[in-house]
């Protein structure tokens, strides 16, 4: 069973490797986006030593790390699922002797692993030459960060699965996929760290799963959270990954019953 999923990861990794040239431009695009926000925030700080507990350097580092982490956790599983439902190939997938959702998760992981090695890490090196950022050298912080990042990936994958599965009920959800992308980018703290939002919004966001995707891992690395603060943060990520997994499963069971293969 595990060997099979390992194979899924390997194959997706190799598939991505075949198109690796596409990723050089991706690194440039991310660097451009990081630049825009670094400049904007520098103008916001304009002399102030710190805002909401972030110094200027920490802010730049936060932006850089959250964009490069996005390269790792971001995937189009929602679109893949929606398309497979649209063209009917999901029917074949369901009768195969594996769990459709788990295969998707591991495909996403293979993709993420590829991007981490060939996008995020070289991208981070390039970005740290261009912009004033400061990365910690404390190995324990890095370990905390990678554990947190993995949970960020899991929560994001689960959100994607749920949105993708809605195609079962709506049959056409291109717009929802777009809206979801914007929503995740904003509410996960990618563009604005959660602590910069007005109080009311922070309280609402605390009840949403999105901060577990980007904000928690990035803060973990930038601030070097000590264990007493890190464990509760991990608890939030862990809780969301369980809750969303159950939700996924529920929707999946219900969706299979209502499956109508278009044009089938």
């Amino acid at each position, binding site marked *: 069973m595990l060997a099979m999923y390992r194979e899924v990861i390997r194959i997706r990794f190799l598939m991505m490797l075949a198109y690796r040239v596409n990723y050089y431009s991706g690194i440039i695009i991310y660097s451009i986006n990081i630049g825009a926000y670094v400049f*904007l925030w520098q103008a916001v700080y304009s002399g102030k030593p710190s805002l909401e507990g972030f110094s200027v350097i920490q802010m730049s580092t936060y932006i850089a790390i959250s964009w490069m982490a996005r390269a790792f956790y971001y995937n189009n599983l929602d679109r893949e699922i929606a398309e497979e439902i649209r063209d009917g190939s999901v029917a074949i997938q369901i009768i195969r002797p594996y769990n459709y959702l788990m295969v998707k998760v591991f495909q996403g992981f293979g993709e993420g692993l590829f991007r981490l090695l060939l996008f995020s890490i070289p991208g981070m090196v390039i970005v740290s030459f261009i912009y004033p950022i400061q990365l910690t050298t404390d190995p324990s912080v890095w370990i905390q960060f990678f554990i947190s990042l993995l949970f960020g990936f899991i929560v994001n994958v689960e959100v994607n699965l749920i949105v993708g599965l809605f195609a079962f009920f709506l049959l056409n959800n291109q717009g929802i996929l777009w809206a979801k992308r914007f929503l995740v980018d904003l509410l996960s703290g990618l563009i604005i760290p959660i602590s910069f939002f007005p109080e009311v919004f922070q309280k609402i966001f605390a009840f949403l799963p999105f901060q577990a995707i980007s904000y928690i891992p990035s803060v973990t690395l930038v601030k070097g959270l000590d264990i007493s603060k890190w464990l509760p943060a991990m608890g939030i990520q862990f809780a969301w990954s369980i809750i969303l997994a159950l939700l996924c499963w529920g929707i999946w069971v219900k969706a299979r019953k209502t499956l109508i293969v278009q044009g089938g």
Partner: protein
Amino acid sequence: MAQLQIFTQYLKQYLKARLAYRLDLVVKFITDLISQSFNLIFILVVFGHTQTLGGWNQSEVVFIYGYFLLPWAIFGTFFNLWSFNDKYIIKGELDRVLTRPVHSLLQVIMESMTPESLLGVVTGLIVMGYGASGLDLQWTWYDPILLILFTIGGVLVYAGIFIALTSISLYTDSKTDIQPIVFNVSNYGRYPVNIFNRIVQFVLTWMLPFAFVGFYPASFLLDRGDWRIYAYLTPVVGIVYFAIAVLLWNRGIRHYRGAGN
């Protein structure tokens, strides 16, 4: 005149096709609104932590963003060239276009326009209004005329840059990723350029002149004279970039050999 007739025919066909999937249309409106309101939220949140951004207050930055939406929406309506390479070169649709007696670029534009994006103009005007409500702006009789001229200039800048990049496909059939890269640079144009460093400012003014799409004209309408000359240059820059793009396109069409069968 004949061109105009063809244009209205295309528009009618397009609307028929779109209205067959009404829900899609609604969804498109909503997603456009969401992406625009998120940019606005970003501005508002940022100004929760500072009074000015490079010397510009919240209302002014909102106004600049609102103004930027006008050329952006018009550009998005008529110049959806993103999938040109796939659709026209790899699938060979361009061969069909070239057998017809209307200019090839015009046909491609008409076939890929999305009139529903024009709603962005309304959103832009509302955002501008919201920004202006916090400011004491003195508008003269010629300001609306300049607004229209600037907007056309901005559209031409955008169109010029992306038509030029699209015509690369006519010279080589391998895919390039330069379009999305430049597209991301264009986002810089909706913020005051003086917050960026000198190199970025230079690029945004003279190489990929996206500052002419949003910031320069908007700063003029805000009665901030520091960039007056740049604002006046907007239509000129637009015409120059557009003209170069059309030349590149025409040359590319002559050069075009097709991607085989």
